[in-house]
């Protein structure tokens, strides 16, 4: 197990925990950005460079900026009640941990594989994208159109 992997994995987990546990929303957003960077680092470790870049640009660069804008422009940075009842917290933690344990148990029953060292080139990805998956690619434009229209309409003033 590579040291780098352990480091990035740890950073990912800790920052994810931070997202859940910080009181102020803005701190949660920043922790999420760190988590996303850690995951991007993981992609690079896996030699999926194209994906890593895309991940950073789209997620950390666009989506999180969106979150930041919303929080800052609508002044949502106040601390409200943070967590739900104690009872809900307890149950959720129990369920969450059993979820993790069950999945890890399932994983441990399978054969592990090593990660290849060569990377997949961007040209390869592009070829597959534009030949085999051309239709979904075009459909994704409609997806974006739908979401843009939806956002605009929901965002309109109701006057």
């Amino acid at each position, binding site marked *: 197990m590579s040291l780098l992997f352990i480091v990035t994995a740890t950073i990912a987990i800790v920052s994810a925990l931070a997202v859940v546990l910080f009181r102020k929303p803005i701190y949660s957003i920043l922790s999420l950005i760190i988590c996303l960077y850690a995951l991007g680092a993981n992609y690079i470790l896996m030699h999926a460079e194209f994906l890593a870049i895309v991940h950073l640009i789209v997620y950390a660069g666009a989506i999180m900026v969106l979150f930041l804008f919303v929080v800052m422009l609508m002044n949502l940075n106040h601390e409200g009640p943070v967590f*739900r009842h104690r009872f*809900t917290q307890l*149950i*959720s933690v129990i*369920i969450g941990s*059993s*979820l993790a344990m*069950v*999945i890890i*148990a*399932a994983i441990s*029953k399978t054969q592990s594989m090593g990660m290849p060292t060569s990377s997949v080139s961007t040209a390869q990805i592009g070829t597959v994208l534009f030949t085999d998956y051309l239709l979904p690619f075009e459909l994704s434009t409609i997806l974006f159109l739908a979401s843009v229209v939806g956002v605009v309409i929901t965002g309109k003033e109701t006057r």
Partner: protein
Amino acid sequence: MTLFKCMPYVILFLPLIGFLVLFIGRSFLSKRLAGILASSTILGAFFGTGLMAARLHDGMVSAPLFQWIQLSHFSISLGLFLDPLAILMALMITGVGFLVHLYSIGYMSNDDGFVRYFGYLNLFIFFMLLLVMSDTYLGTFLGWEGVGLCSYLLIGFWYKNHQYVYAATKAFIMNRVGDVGFILAMGLLFITFGTLKYTEIFSSLSFLQPSPLLLFVMCSFLILAVAGKSAQFPLYTWLPDAMAGPTPVSALIHAATMVTAGVYLVSRSSMLFSLSPEAGDVLVVIGVVTAIIGAVTATYQYDLKKILAYSTVSQLGFMVVALGLGSYTAALFHMLMHAFFKALLFLGAGNVIHSVDGEQDIRKMGALRKYLPVTSTYMMIGSLAIMGLPPLSGFFSKEGIVEAAMIHSKPIFGLLLFVSALTTFYMSRMIYFVFFGQPRYLTRHPHEAGITMQIPLAILAILTIVGGMLSPNHPSGIGLIATTLGIIVVFGAIGLAWARSESQHHSESTRVVSGLDAAYSRWVIAPYLFLSRVVFSKVDRQLNRSVVGAARLGEWMGSSVTRVQSGSMGLYLLLMLAAIVMVMIKIVVL
């Protein structure tokens, strides 16, 4: 299936279909349609029975119905069995039933519950037919219970009157006491013979040879049932009270059919009774006592229908005596003739009551012969028949019984003669009060009834007159005829004279014999009420608490579960995730 083969089912189920149609359509059937429908089902059943009678002569027909209980070691099935006894009863039931339906169309024409009434009547005919046409004791019992139910429904027909409902309840409860006897008898029969089918029981009698004691006990239980249904001592007090129902109901149920179910039962079980002479003696004693009590009570009744009711009790006593003496033919013949003239008398009484606007007290009637010439003729024919004047039907049937008594036992013969004398007395008294003498009624001119009410009377009158021709044997000897005539002349004259003096002196009514009822009230009802109060305060309250407690438990469980449906997404998500985790655990671990 040929017409002949399915005829038994047609006969039985036509009235039931009539009831169902009337019940379902009770809010939108017109009175006319309902009356025609109800009467035609019975007429159809009558024709069907007639067809079977014509084709069968002395034979019998079996028509299975269905398998009711089927266990590995015993099964109970229901079916129909038509032998001469069943066909005789069925003819009487459907014939007199049809005439009563026809009469009721006119009698009940102003009643709001018209459709309900005909529904109940049809249902009654169905149950009565089931009673007589069944091939097992169990089927007969079903019909037995059913006619008891219909009797309750019809006696308490005008349910808004509490007295009437009380009378209906009384009838039903007394019937039920008799039913205990029936059930016990069925139990014993089943244990002894392993079956409840008539044919199977009677054919296995010879080689099973049950002990005389067992037979006597069985027959005694059956006698208890007969006492309840056929108004024998001491279970007869419901019959006079049952006059609370509409008069056609009294004519049909309490003169011609339901009360004859007991006679049918004993006749059907004749093989059992013939093997147990002690049971026969019991029957004779009960019958004689009943006959005497009925006749004596009738002599000082002032209610027209009650006179006829007690007269029925008395005549039923006659029939039971005949059964006890083993002359089943005589008993059945008298039953049939009695059906004719008693129905005639009741329907005629219906006419009379209808004409004086519902007045039933004979002290308020009189000289109705002028206004109701036709009805009075019918009533006189009926009365002469019940007195036993030859050559009317009553003569042949009554004298058949009296003759049998004469042969078997002189004291019984004497008592029966005494009862005949009393019968003559009270009937002529009744006739005088109602039709002769001075008019004493408070209303305007009485008028004769309409034609639908006269036709059945006419038919019954004809049957009363010529019924004697059906007699199975001719009464022997001039001696008997002379005795009868003598009785009639003497006691008839006494009755008329007594009635004349009674009506002229306006004598007060003496206390009606409700001595038996008073005894019941003190010794049976009061302790029962006391006991039930005690039970209520102790047991019922506890039961109530536990039942309510169970209900509260259910409520609490329910309300705790409703909290799940709080509408909060968070809870839903939590539960969803929990479920998924559990499924995954199950898959991975197990």
